[in-house]
């Protein structure tokens, strides 16, 4: 009476073993197995550790060939064999081996990936989760929660232990934790925090929220950058702090608001101008002739009371525009 691993070892590399692999995953599919069972099947049948990773769904399962589930040990080795899970291609079943291709390994990867896709579509939302995942993230970024508890929540998010991460803030107050270097979520507006070690994520969150306040929908009514990185704010963070501390609106902002009431699209014009390296570049961004833009800036300067085309005036303009964003 041989156990499964013993039997497979005995018929290794043959079509017989491949048939056993198919029978194994077919039977697993018939009885509502979960993802861990799928990964364990791959590890046991291939005789090497196996992983299922899907960053967009925060799935991370790793099982040793003796069937024991473990945390992810090392970053994946590019030489390991893998197979994509599902048509969107974000997930992978991985065998931690670089041995040469074999019928059995290929069959294990293919069948495990097929079944993983089936299980995912059965128990989870079909696509990558679109929005941030609130409750757990709130714990991770809450400075009042004990560090151990935050780290536990961090692991629950499925992010690699020891790696740096950052917080992105969405309009409406939600935040999301993203591995440093990973692609940012696609959102209408985002504030992006600094990349930090896991225990410092509350700091990243605070900075992400500040950055979000400097972002805009980038429409004619609300011009400005859609994605703002805290690392790029520099001294502008001080303005946010001053506003939060109750400083009254500056005279320059009051001038800007008055001028905006008289000239349509003034804020759009000035925002594009302030964000461009030259008058010509700003004119191109606004789809107007550069002489037209010069005329509009002349008009704006008369109403504002300062010269926005000199370096000092340009700085004043940028400060006033930033303050406008903060006081929306």
């Amino acid at each position: 009476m041989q156990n499964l691993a013993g039997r497979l070892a005995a018929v290794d590399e043959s079509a017989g073993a491949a048939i056993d692999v198919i029978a194994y995953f077919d039977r697993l599919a018939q009885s509502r197995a979960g993802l861990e069972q799928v990964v364990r099947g791959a590890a046991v049948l291939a005789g090497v550790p196996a992983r299922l990773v899907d960053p967009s769904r925060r799935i991370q399962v790793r099982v040793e060939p003796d069937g024991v589930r473990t945390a992810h040990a090392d970053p994946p080795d590019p030489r390991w064999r893998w197979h994509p899970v599902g048509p969107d291609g974000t997930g992978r079943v991985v065998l931690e081996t670089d041995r040469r291709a074999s019928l059995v390994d290929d069959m294990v990867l293919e069948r495990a990936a097929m079944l993983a896709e089936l299980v995912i579509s059965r128990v989870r939302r079909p696509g990558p989760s679109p929005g941030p995942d609130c409750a757990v993230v709130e714990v991770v970024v809450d400075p009042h929660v004990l560090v151990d508890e935050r780290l536990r929540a961090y692991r629950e998010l499925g992010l690699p232990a020891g790696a740096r991460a950052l917080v992105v803030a969405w309009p409406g107050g939600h935040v999301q934790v993203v591995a440093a270097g990973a692609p940012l979520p696609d959102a209408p507006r985002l504030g992006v925090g600094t990349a930090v070690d896991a225990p410092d994520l509350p700091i990243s969150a605070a900075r992400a929220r500040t950055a979000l306040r400097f972002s805009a929908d980038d429409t004619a009514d609300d011009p400005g950058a859609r994605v703002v990185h805290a690392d790029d704010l520099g001294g502008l963070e001080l303005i946010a702090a001053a506003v939060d501390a109750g400083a009254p609106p500056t005279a320059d902002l009051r001038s800007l608001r008055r001028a905006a009431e008289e000239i349509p699209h003034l804020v759009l014009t000035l925002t594009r101008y302030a964000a461009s390296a030259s008058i010509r570049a700003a004119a191109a961004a606004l789809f107007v002739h550069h002489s037209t833009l010069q005329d509009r800036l002349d008009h704006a300067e008369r109403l504002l009371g300062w010269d926005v085309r000199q370096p000092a005036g340009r700085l004043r303009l940028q400060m006033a525009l930033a303050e406008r964003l903060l006081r929306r």
Partner: protein
Amino acid sequence: MTTIAPPPFDPELAAALAATGQDTVATGITPDTLADARAALLEGVPSVADLAADGTYDVEELAVPGPEGGQDVPLLVIRPRDAVGLRPVVYHTHGGGLIMGNNRFGVDLVLEWARELGLIVVSVGYRLAPEHPFPAGLDDAHAGLRWVHEHAGEIGGDARRIVLAGGSAGGTLAAALAQLTRDRGDVEVLGQLLMYPMLDDRNDSVSVRQMAGIGVWDGISNATGWSAWLAGRPGADAPRYAVPARERDLAGLPPAFLDVGSAETFRDEVVEYAGRIWAAGGEAELHVWPGAFHGFDFLAPQAELSQRARQARLHWLRRLLGE
């Protein structure tokens, strides 16, 4: 006999069974097919060299005096090389329906405890039915146990900490030894670990009928085993200790650990035996593993359920032995 739907197998266990290329294991064994079944059971059983695991264990094969007027009894003594001083002893009786197997069958599972807890494992080679019906097998097992008790120090064992352990028919013998030594008082036994034990020759419970021809070890194989053991005698006339479940008095037994699958022939008799131990004021820990077939942890050791079952046994042993 009406058929009753059995509980579904656990997904991983069902998959492992499917991957062995057969629907069932050790079902429908009759005296005519016994020779083949014996060979199939021993396929893949570790050799003495395998058991030594490259020096992790010292393995010794002893022959000790058998029952009065009988032949010597082979004992396989396995000791973790890093064990220090006198260690608790697991006295292992192997499975195989009382008609199959040898003293290396199923020892792999016991060695895990030895490694974790530093235990001495003694696995007895007892005579098999039908060539040698009851009491031959139990007499051999009893003689071996008495030798271990009297000579524990010679194998580095602690005579005050002997635990009986056996799976399937090994559980028959372990349970019978627990009853026998309780009554004779010749060996002090600390506990009995009965893994999906074969306890009742009546072979007519609901679980027996549910599992007819399904899974691992069905009612036909079971009838063949009991009939050989009892030499064709009706069970009602069976001598004392031949059938553990027929013992009327289950009081005063050493603490018992019992486990069984919900999808196996022995489910109901194991649950009932545990219930009777409690009713007699005894100590028993019972685990019924959902969707498990007979010998599940042996056939699919990597499955989650198998891991949990092994953990449960280890925890019980650790508590029992004060390790």
